[in-house]
């Protein structure tokens, strides 16, 4: 009832004629008066939180010194000399990023760290749209592997090539309450399990042994694949940690191309009591030349990048880390390599973002921008997509046109 009162009264308020007249006069007087430049809002505050240096490809923060030989080593970015930008405070609040206490929390354990220059071409894979029957066969197989008994299912068709719901979804409820959601034929989400730890162990075994024949599994000369882990951690506005713990196959003797494949497609992630198992993609549609990391950075800086993170000033961003992976987010027409660029802006002010009562001082913003790694000449052949808030998350100059 009170929301109706609220709507009917405040919703009916309109400007008085006297206010309109005064405001119109003030606006007409302001014409031609350009707003004075303004320095970034929070440089001093952010500097107090961070001592940041991007030197020789290593990100150093006040808290963590990343081992230059370890996984935190990025390609060597150019030293950042950031001119003081003119920032309109009205725009800043539209910029979006992840909240962390240290940038290394989003670096992960990507095998391309420090090795990007080794890659010149990579395969692109199909992401086929399956029929309902194909999905049912696959889900039954996966449920059997997981030891789940399906009680009921619900199938939803895809919503079209150009949408984030491109592929159909088959959901199932198991007799123990576990919920399964098969998206296309590339990911299986498992949630509401009464024993997530046990399911995690089962899925891990599936990940390791799925490609081995029974004979290979029994043979003493066959060594099971090794796994590696990474934890990606960000924070809610409440200051609550939201870690994603990923396990993926890693053969240290394999080529970098094979390692990236396993990192992306032979992978499981646990986040918020939900587990996602990524399945291997369809056939390769070809091997394509890659653009260089510097070219990808140029693309980002000149307003051609993707992702839920967004900044109006990519040209001023401080680059933290660049890696390469296959994009396995929903709605991909093809699974293709992307550069993943971590960046920050010195004017991002955590005090504006965190909930009341949360000390903002430990936190900082880190954006994640994605740039397709396939040489732009070939991107019409293998179009790239990434979605956020039900829409395409492609940031291009037309946004400011």
């Amino acid at each position, binding site marked *: 009832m009170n929301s109706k009162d609220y709507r009917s009264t*405040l919703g009916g308020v309109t400007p008085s004629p006297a206010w309109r007249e005064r405001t119109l006069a003030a606006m007409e007087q302001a014409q031609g008066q350009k707003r004075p430049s303004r320095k970034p809002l929070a440089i001093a505050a952010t500097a107090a939180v961070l001592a940041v240096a991007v030197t020789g490809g290593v990100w150093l923060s006040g808290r963590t010194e990343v081992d230059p030989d370890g996984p935190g080593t990025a390609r060597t970015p150019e030293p950042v000399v950031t001119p003081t930008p003119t920032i309109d405070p*009205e725009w800043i609040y539209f910029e979006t990023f992840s909240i962390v206490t240290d940038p290394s929390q989003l670096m992960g354990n990507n095998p391309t760290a420090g090795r990007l220059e080794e890659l010149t071409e990579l395969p692109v894979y199909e992401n086929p749209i399956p029929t309902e029957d194909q999905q049912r066969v696959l889900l039954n197989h996966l449920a059997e592997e997981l030891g789940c008994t399906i009680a009921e299912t619900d199938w939803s068709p895809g919503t079209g090539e150009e949408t984030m719901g491109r592929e159909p979804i088959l959901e199932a409820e198991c007799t123990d309450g576990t919920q399964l959601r098969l998206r296309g034929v590339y990911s299986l989400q498992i949630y509401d399990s009464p024993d997530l730890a046990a399911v995690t162990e089962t899925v891990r075994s599936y990940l390791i042994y799925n490609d081995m024949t029974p004979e290979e599994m029994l043979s003493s000369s066959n060594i099971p694949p090794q796994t590696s882990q990474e934890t990606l951690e960000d924070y809610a*506005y409440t200051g609550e940690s939201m870690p994603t713990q990923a396990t993926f196959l890693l053969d240290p003797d394999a080529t970098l191309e094979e390692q990236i494949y396993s990192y992306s497609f032979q992978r499981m992630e646990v986040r918020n009591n939900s587990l996602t198992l990524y399945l291997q993609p369809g056939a390769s549609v070809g091997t394509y030349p890659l653009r260089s990391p510097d070219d990808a950075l140029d693309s980002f800086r000149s307003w051609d990048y993707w992702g839920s993170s967004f900044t109006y000033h990519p040209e001023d961003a401080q680059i933290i880390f660049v890696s390469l992976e296959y994009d396995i987010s929903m709605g991909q027409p093809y699974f293709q390599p992307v550069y993943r660029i971590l960046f920050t802006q010195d004017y991002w002010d955590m005090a504006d973002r965190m909930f009341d009562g949360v000390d903002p001082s430990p936190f900082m913003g880190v954006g994640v921008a994605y740039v397709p790694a396939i040489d732009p000449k070939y991107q019409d052949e293998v179009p790239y997509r990434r979605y956020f*808030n039900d829409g395409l998350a492609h940031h291009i100059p037309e946004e400011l046109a």
Partner: protein
Amino acid sequence: MPTLNGNSLSCEEILDRYGPLVYRMAIQGTGSVADGEDVAQEVFVSLIQCDPRFADETHLKAWLIRATANRCKSWGRSPWHRRTVPLEEARQAAPPPETGGTWEAVAALPPKYRWPVYLHYIEGYTAAEIAQLLGCPRNTVLSRLSRARAKLKDALKEEWA
């Protein structure tokens, strides 16, 4: 002058189209009609001075909403404002709309809850649209609306429905 889809907007057009939105929002954000009028005027003057180019109407509205929210925030902590315009006096001089306490309860919410409530209940935006306007994930808007309703229930001693 600001442009929308490449077309220049006149001051009259801007006020006719977006005056009520900014005016209401400023009153909600400052807690008084007098302060709200000042804030709303500042927002429109700032729009002229910034001279931005907007790709579409959503973009323009998002700018105005963000600008109004920012100015309401800084208005409340402005030393000049605190020294010269006591909130209660301003309210007495120009009382806010009578809504049986709901308006005051919404005004008392922290901004991060107040604006989703305002944009949803007064301006009729969906959670996805508010997410776009405020530049945050839709789930954040939904959780803030949910928490705001709980706070309003406590404040008003009845369900916010």
